[in-house]
C-alpha cells in the first residue's frame, strides 16, 4: 500500500489542480463500457476504484506521473475514451488513472499525407478535422464518438471499412510513448509501418493495452475523402455460398465494407445489430465500394458477377446504404444490449485464415447452443474486417434471463467466453480481432501465445516495467 497523501501531493506539484481524488471523480473512472463494468454498476456491486485521477497535458507531464508512480510503486491505468469492452481500464488494484483526453492536438501534414494526433483526440474529432480538408483516415469504428487515438492503438481498433483501409495498426507510421520508467520514446515516422531497420518498435506498443507504457502521440497515413460510395447487397440460400463469394472476390477487388450476416442475425435474434429487409432467408451480404472515377462501379460489377455465380440474389443498393446511414443506431438505448441489463451479453470477435474461419464459427455456435441451451442462449453473427487471407467472425451471445446471483451470472458469462475462446485457439484462430484482451480475455493469453510466447511477453514487460506498475492484471500480465 502506498502513501496516498504523499503521492497526491507529489502529483499536485506536477499538475496543479489537474489531480483529483474526490469520491465522485474516482467513481467516474471505474472501467469501460463492457458488460463486466456495467453489470457491477447496474447491480450496485462494489468494484475497485482508482485512488487518484490525473489529467496530463503533454508527454513531459505523463513522464513525471510515471516517475512518481515508479518511486511509490503505484499502479497506473492509462485511460482514453473508456469505450473498451473487455475491462481493460478497470483499476483492479486502485492506483492512478491517467485520463489522456486533455492531450488533444491535431497536426495535419498535407504534403506528407499524414496526421499527427495526441493520444486524447477522439476518433470523431480527428475524422471531422480531416474531412474539412477533404481527407480521411478511413477509420470508422462503432466507438468513434468516444474512443481516443491512444485507446484505439492500445487495443488494436478496427473500423467498418478496414477491409480496404486496414486496422489502426496498419495506419500508424510513428509513435510517441512514455515508458513506464518515464523516458520518452519517439520513433521515426516511416512511410510505411514497417521498414528494414530491425524489429519494429511501434508495434511493440500497439496492442499493449497500457501494460508497457503510455502512448502520447501517433502519426497516421491519410487518404483523400472518397468521391463516391457504391452500395450493393445480396442474399444467399446458405452462409457457405456467401462466404465462398467473399473469399473469391477479395483476391480480385477491394471493397471498403464487406459484411456477411448469418441467418440468426438476419432473422431470429432480438438483439441483432442490423434489421435487414423483410423476407430475406439464409445469409445476407452487404458491400460498399468507395473511391474515384469509374473504379467503385467496376469493382462492384466484378463482385456482383462473383456473387451471382455463387448462388447470390442481388437485392439492390438500398440495404447496404441503409446500413451505412443507420449503423450507429443500434448502439443507442434502448436498442443497445446494455439497455437490457442484467441480461448477459458479449462478443466473440475472433479471426482466422479463410480455411478455418467459417469452421471455427460453426463449431463455436454449435457448442454454445448445446452447452448453454438450457439458459436459452441466443447468438447472432456476421463476418467482416477481412484481409487478403482471412477475416473475422463477430458472434454476439445473449442470455436473456440470467441467474439472480451475480457471482453465478459472472461465472456463466466467463464460461461461455472460455468455451468459444478455447475452440478458437484449438482450431488455430486468433482469440480476438479488434476489441483487445483487457481483463476478460487475459486468462486466455497463454492459450493463444503458448507458454513460450507468453514468457517472451512477460520478459519484455519486466525489462520495460521493472516494478510492474503499468495496468497490472491486464493482457494476462
Amino acid at each position, binding site marked *: 500500500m502506498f502513501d496516498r497523501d504523499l503521492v497526491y501531493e507529489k502529483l499536485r506539484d506536477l499538475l496543479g489542480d489537474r489531480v483529483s481524488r474526490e469520491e465522485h471523480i474516482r467513481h467516474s473512472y471505474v472501467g469501460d463500457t463492457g458488460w463486466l463494468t456495467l453489470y457491477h454498476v447496474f447491480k450496485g456491486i462494489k468494484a475497485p476504484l482508482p485512488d487518484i485521477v490525473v489529467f496530463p497535458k503533454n508527454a513531459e507531464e505523463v513522464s513525471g506521473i510515471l516517475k512518481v508512480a515508479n518511486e511509490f510503486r503505484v499502479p497506473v491505468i492509462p485511460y482514453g475514451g473508456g469505450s473498451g469492452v473487455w475491462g481493460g481500464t478497470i483499476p483492479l488494484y486502485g492506483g492512478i488513472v491517467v485520463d489522456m483526453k486533455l492531450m488533444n492536438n491535431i497536426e495535419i501534414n498535407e504534403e506528407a499525407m499524414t496526421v499527427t494526433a495526441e493520444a486524447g483526440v477522439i476518433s470523431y474529432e480527428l475524422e471531422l478535422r480531416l474531412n474539412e480538408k477533404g481527407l480521411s483516415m478511413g477509420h470508422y469504428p462503432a466507438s468513434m464518438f468516444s474512443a481516443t487515438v491512444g485507446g484505439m492503438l492500445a487495443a488494436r481498433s478496427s473500423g467498418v471499412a478496414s477491409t480496404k483501409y486496414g486496422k489502426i495498426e496498419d495506419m500508424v507510421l510513428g509513435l510517441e510513448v512514455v515508458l513506464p520508467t518515464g523516458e520518452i520514446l519517439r520513433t521515426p515516422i516511416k512511410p510505411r509501418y514497417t521498414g528494414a531497420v530491425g524489429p519494429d518498435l511501434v508495434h511493440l506498443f500497439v496492442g499493449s493495452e497500457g501494460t508497457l507504457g503510455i502512448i502520447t502521440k501517433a502519426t497516421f497515413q491519410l487518404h483523400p475523402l472518397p468521391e463516391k460510395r457504391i452500395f450493393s447487397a445480396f442474399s444467399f440460400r446458405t452462409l457457405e455460398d456467401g462466404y465462398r463469394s467473399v473469399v473469391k472476390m477479395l483476391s480480385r477487388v477491394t471493397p471498403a465494407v464487406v459484411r456477411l450476416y448469418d441467418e440468426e442475425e438476419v432473422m431470429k435474434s432480438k438483439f441483432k445489430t442490423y434489421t435487414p429487409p423483410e423476407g430475406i432467408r439464409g445469409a445476407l451480404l452487404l458491400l460498399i465500394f468507395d473511391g474515384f472515377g469509374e473504379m467503385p462501379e467496376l469493382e462492384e460489377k466484378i463482385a456482383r458477377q462473383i456473387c451471382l455465380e455463387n448462388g447470390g440474389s442481388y437485392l439492390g443498393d438500398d440495404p447496404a446504404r441503409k446500413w451505412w446511414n443507420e449503423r450507429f443506431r443500434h*448502439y*443507442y438505448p434502448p436498442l443497445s444490449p446494455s439497455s437490457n441489463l442484467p441480461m448477459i451479453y458479449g462478443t466473440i470477435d475472433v479471426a482466422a485464415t479463410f480455411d478455418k474461419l467459417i469452421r471455427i464459427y460453426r463449431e463455436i455456435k454449435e457448442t454454445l447452443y448445446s452447452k448453454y441451451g438450457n439458459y436459452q442462449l441466443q447468438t447472432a453473427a456476421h463476418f467482416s474486417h477481412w484481409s487478403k487471407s482471412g477475416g473475422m467472425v463477430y458472434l454476439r451471445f445473449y442470455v436473456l434471463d440470467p441467474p439472480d446471483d451475480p457471482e453465478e451470472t459472472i461465472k456463466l458469462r466467463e464460461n461461455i467466453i472460455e468455451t468459444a475462446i478455447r475452440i478458437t485457439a484449438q482450431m488455430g484462430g486468433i482469440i480476438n480481432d479488434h476489441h483487445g484482451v483487457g481483463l476478460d480475455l487475459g486468462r486466455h493469453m497463454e492459450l493463444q501465445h503458448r507458454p513460450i510466447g507468453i514468457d517472451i511477453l512477460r520478459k519484455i514487460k519486466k525489462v520495460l516495467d521493472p516494478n510492474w506498475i503499468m495496468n497490472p492484471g491486464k493482457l494476462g500480465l
Partner: protein
Amino acid sequence: MQLPDKIMNMVKSCAFCYLMCRHYCTISIVQRMNQSTPTGRAMLLYRLLNKEIQLNEDIAYVFYNCTNCGRCYIACETKISNPPEWIEETRYMLASRNMITEKVRALRENILRHGNTYGLSGDKLLDKISDMEEIFEGWSDTLYYVGGDIRSRHAEIAEKTIELFRKLSINVKVLRDEPPDGGILYIFGFRNEARKLATRLIEKIKSSGVNRIIVSDPLAYASFKVYYPKMGINLGGLEVVHVLELLSEKPMKFDRLAVKVTYHDPCFLGRRSTGVYEPPRMLLKKIPGLELREAAFNRDNAFCCGGLLQPIDEYWAKKVAEMLAERLGSKDVDLIVTACPRCHDSLRNIGVKTLDIVEILNEQYLPGV
C-alpha cells in the same frame, strides 16, 4: 432521494449507454472528463440514488456544470432520453435539499432581487429611450417583453428593436415593472420561485389588455413556449412570437452592407424551443451586399456559447465560448450575428466582434422603399 419513473428511465438509458453523445456534448468536448458527459453524469446520479455515494456540493456541481444546450439530444438517434430534462429534474431535487453551489445560490439571488442573471440594478432602457413613459403608459394589443438581461446590460437590443418597430408602425407597449419570466430559475431547479414569478408576469400581462407578446430574449421565448406549459402556467390565448418571426413576415427593404457574417443559432431560439432557424436567415439575406456564411454546425447542430454556464463557472464558460468562436470560423468573417444577450456576452468576452441581428436590421432598414 427519488426521481419520477419517467425521468428515472431516462437516467438509466443514459447511464448504460455506450457514450454515444460524448462527441456532441458541449461540456464534454471542452472538459473532456468522464463525469462531464451525459453518460458520466447519469451514472453518478444512478449511484447517488442507489446510495452508493453520498451527496455533497462537489457532486451537485456536476449537475450544474451543463449548459442545457440540448446537443446531446440531437446526437441521440433513438431519442429515448432527453438529458436536459433529467438534469433539470435533478437540480430540482438538489434545490429541494438546499444542496446547491454558492454560485447557483448567487444566481438565484440575482434573479429574485434584481430581475437579471448579472445582479445589476437599474433599468438601462430609461437611459436609452427618451419617450419611454409613452411606451409604458400607452395602449397596444401587443406587449414587447424585453427581459431582465437585456434591460440591465443589453438595452441597445431593446432600443433598436423599439426603433425598428416604430419605423414599421408596429405599436407595442412595454411593462414598466417587468417581472422576470422565471425560466432560468426553473432550469436551475427553483421551481416554486419560477412558478411564482411566471404567475405574476402572466397576470400582469393579462391585466394590461394585450393579446400578443413579442419576445427578444431567447430564454424568455423558451419560457413562454416550453417552460410555462411544464409549470402548468396557462397563457389563456396569448399569442407569443419572437421578434425575428414577426419581422420576417414584414415586407422590408434594406440598404447595402458589404460584410461577411456568420449567424450563430442561440440554443433557446433553436433546438431548445421551437427551432426559429429560417427567420434570421431570411432577414439577413434581404440585405444587399451581405454575405451570409453558414457554420459547418448550425441550426439543430449549432454549438452552444456557454452562456448559461457563465454565472456558474466562468472558466469553463470561456472555454466553451472559445470553442464556439473557432467552430463558427469567426476569424474568417467580419462579424458574428446572433440574437441572444448571453451569446453576445460569451463571444465579446473573448474578443469576438458580434452584433445583434436587430441592430443590423434597424441600421440598414430603408423606410418607405
